[in-house]
């Protein structure tokens, strides 16, 4: 896609909610706000815009870039203490069972966590396959196993 500020602006306006949601579901160091993460994702989207060839949808591409950015930021900040949820002020996060489920999803290894997050955001199996580079069968298997694992953990509480 052409490096064009107008195109980029339209793209971000159209998908700002999705980007925000991805940023807010990763725990970062306390020095990082969701706004910081959002900005970092936008930087990477801008840098990657030139190589976006439209073989996947804009939404799929944005999810992939945003998720990779958040995984990278999580690694950068993981050695530091005081980790807090990026959106710790959100009231629903204090709801105990909900918090448990979010924590269980966070604890999943990659790419299973990405697959579950994409599933929660409403992506189809085919779209998740494009995001992760896995086959359709592999996505279906990992999704099924991850949901089974989450269900088992949840029910054991």
């Amino acid at each position, binding site marked *: 896609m052409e490096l064009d500020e107008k195109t980029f602006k339209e793209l971000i306006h159209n998908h700002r909610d999705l980007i925000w949601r991805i940023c807010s579901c990763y725990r970062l160091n306390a020095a990082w706000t969701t706004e910081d993460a959002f900005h970092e994702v*936008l930087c990477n989207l801008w840098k990657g815009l030139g190589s976006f060839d439209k073989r996947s949808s804009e939404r799929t591409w944005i999810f992939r870039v945003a998720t990779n950015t958040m995984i990278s930021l999580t690694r950068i900040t993981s050695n530091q203490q005081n980790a807090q949820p990026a959106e710790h002020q959100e009231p629903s996060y204090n709801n105990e069972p909900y918090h448990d489920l979010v924590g269980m999803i966070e604890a999943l290894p990659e790419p299973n966590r990405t697959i579950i997050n994409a599933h929660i955001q409403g992506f189809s199996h085919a779209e998740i396959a494009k995001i992760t580079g896995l086959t359709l069968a592999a996505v279906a298997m990992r999704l099924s196993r991850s949901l089974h694992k989450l269900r088992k953990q949840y029910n054991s509480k």
Partner: protein
Amino acid sequence: MQNFDQQLQHHKEEQQQKRYPHTEAELDKVILSAVQDGSLIEHKATFPENHKQHRLRSAIAEAAVLAAIIIPSALYLHNRQIERELTTIDIDGQRIIFSCNKECDPAEVLDNFKTIIK
């Protein structure tokens, strides 16, 4: 207590209802800032990678890049976030303004910056 399927459904609905919380004008500012930063990041290759704080490194690197490579007159307002504190430094009579994380100590930023551009 809700069962797993109810909780998962609740989580899905909460996620899908979540909206970017700032105004259109604020989003435009962040987009502009990201375009500027996304372009600048390409010039960061020579910056030391082992600095203790990523955010601090980012702010210093951008200022260093601007001072050394991009703008001879070196007047730059880095509009990364509205809430950021702005730090102004003078190098050879040229003023550079950049923003840094609120938790950063401006004196430390300046010391590091001076070390880098020596």
